[in-house]
């Protein structure tokens, strides 16, 4: 059965490949970097994932690269395991990635699914662990931005004001029993219920299953059904809803700083880009990301327009 399937797939695939290549589209094989043979700066493929923030970051990268004279093609895919091998091979040239996310991925890829975590709350240490892993895959990591998209926990502004809360430690010091609104897999996780109880000493009596960053979890906190809800640090809707994040002062969240990951050969051929992206990383803040996410997710602006505006505001174009 296995052999039959493989055989059938291989033969039919080979035939189809030929026919598709003859009859197919206009841009089958022009992907990937081609150094400036035609006098221009050549083409760049920006990769990324198919969700709002990644889409905005890809649009920012595209605008910066076009401004620098490159022809840019953006390819957004569903998951990291689709684009990272392509980045490694040079079919994708640059990706806006997340520090701990790419570190964990490359670590498991190199050392197996049971490998010890090398990412941590510390961006410096995480970067130090990431660099050799990335280098082995032909990927260069540019300096991470301070902007970070981590999981985070929020309470109502009112509750925070009454009890003078700014951090999760403050909340723990209150000694109140807490109901937490979070996805079911929160139970026991070091960056969720596990960390909140073991590291902070929170008394979590119940996890009410509510989706991450959903309208439901925000309503539940507002209505007092739960005291604490889970969302991301780049959630720009909280302030308008009268909600506020509590700082992760003991660092249970891995460092998910926005980090450009570049194909090493491409970077070697285009060394000037390092400056361009370092300026971006310096300018970008978590608040910027939150504000841009709101513009796309609620005001339904196009990521390209939001990216353009951001770059102009920061004087990067």
């Amino acid at each position, binding site marked *: 059965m296995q052999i039959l399937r493989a055989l*059938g797939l291989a033969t039919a695939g080979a035939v189809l490949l030929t*026919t598709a*290549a003859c*009859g197919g589209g206009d841009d089958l*094989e022009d992907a990937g970097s081609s150094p400036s043979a035609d006098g221009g700066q050549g083409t760049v493929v920006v990769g990324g994932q198919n969700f709002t923030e990644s889409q905005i970051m890809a649009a920012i990268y595209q605008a910066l690269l076009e401004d620098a004279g490159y022809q840019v093609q953006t390819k957004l895919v569903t998951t990291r395991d689709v684009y990272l091998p392509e980045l490694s091979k040079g079919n994708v040239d640059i990706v806006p990635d997340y520090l701990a996310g790419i570190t964990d991925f490359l670590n498991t890829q190199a050392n197996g699914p049971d490998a010890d975590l090398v990412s941590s709350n510390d961006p410096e240490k995480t970067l130090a662990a990431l660099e050799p892993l990335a280098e082995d895959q032909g990927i260069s990591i540019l300096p991470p931005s301070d902007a970070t998209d981590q999981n985070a926990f929020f309470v109502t502004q009112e509750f925070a004001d009454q009890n003078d809360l700014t951090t999760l430690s403050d909340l723990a010091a209150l000694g109140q029993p807490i109901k937490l609104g979070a996805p079911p897999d929160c139970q026991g996780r070091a960056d969720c219920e596990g960390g909140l109880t073991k590291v902070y000493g929170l008394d979590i009596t119940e996890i009410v299953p509510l989706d991450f960053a959903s309208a439901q979890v925000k309503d539940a906190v507002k209505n007092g059904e739960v005291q604490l809800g889970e969302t991301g640090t780049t959630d720009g809707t909280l302030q308008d809803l009268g909600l506020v994040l509590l700082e992760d002062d003991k660092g249970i969240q891995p460092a998910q700083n926005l980090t450009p990951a570049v194909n090493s050969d491409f970077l070697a051929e285009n060394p000037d880009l390092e400056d361009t992206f370092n300026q971006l990383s310096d300018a970008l803040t978590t608040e910027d990301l939150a504000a841009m996410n709101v513009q796309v997710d609620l005001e339904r602006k*196009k990521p390209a327009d939001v990216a353009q505006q951001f770059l102009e505001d920061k004087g990067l174009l």
Partner: protein
Amino acid sequence: MALVDGVAQCYVDNDWICGRYWTDYRPELTDATVEHLWITVVSVVAGLVVAVPLALLARRNATVESAVVGATTIIYTIPSLALFSLLLPLTGLSPTTVIIGLGLYSLTILVRNVLAGLQGVPDEIREAARGIGYSPTQLLLRVELPLALPVIVAGLRIATVSTVALATIGSIVSYGGLGNLLLLAVGNQFKAQIFAASVLCVALAGVLDLALVVLQQLLTPWTRHAR
């Protein structure tokens, strides 16, 4: 919620039907529809180009027939996620990945229908054609394929409509046509975009189906007179 002035009300309310969306996102919708169309057409044409010789091979004897029909059916059972993942290392983030996948899926329907169409040609007609001196090639091109055409086109119609729906999966590798818009919109609950992309998918399937019906009428005028 304090939103910036000038944001269309149907965006704020996240309505399914939002006229503003259709104008604001016209270029995106057009590009996605065009991509969806050509990926679908190329996939089905490629599938047909492979299906005809496979069907000709299959009709030689029963063993070959069950092998070919079996193999193309098994392909259909491979989950699309897995199939694209298998192709990815070979063809990368390119339309080719999607076209091979969709073309392979279309084989299940096309091989069976081409085969059934050819087998449906009455033996006495074949006999008569040979009797007036047709070579095997002439027999195939002038007698068998034209007579099999209605059944083949019926298969093409099913394959095309199912390929329009399946093509959205190409968004895994960023070549999903309207699927790219759908995936993004599901992610950030953009109802107007989910609605528009779905409507365009259905419309595309309808238009292509109609085009094939018209094509068949033009190619087989005798089926109209026969009634």
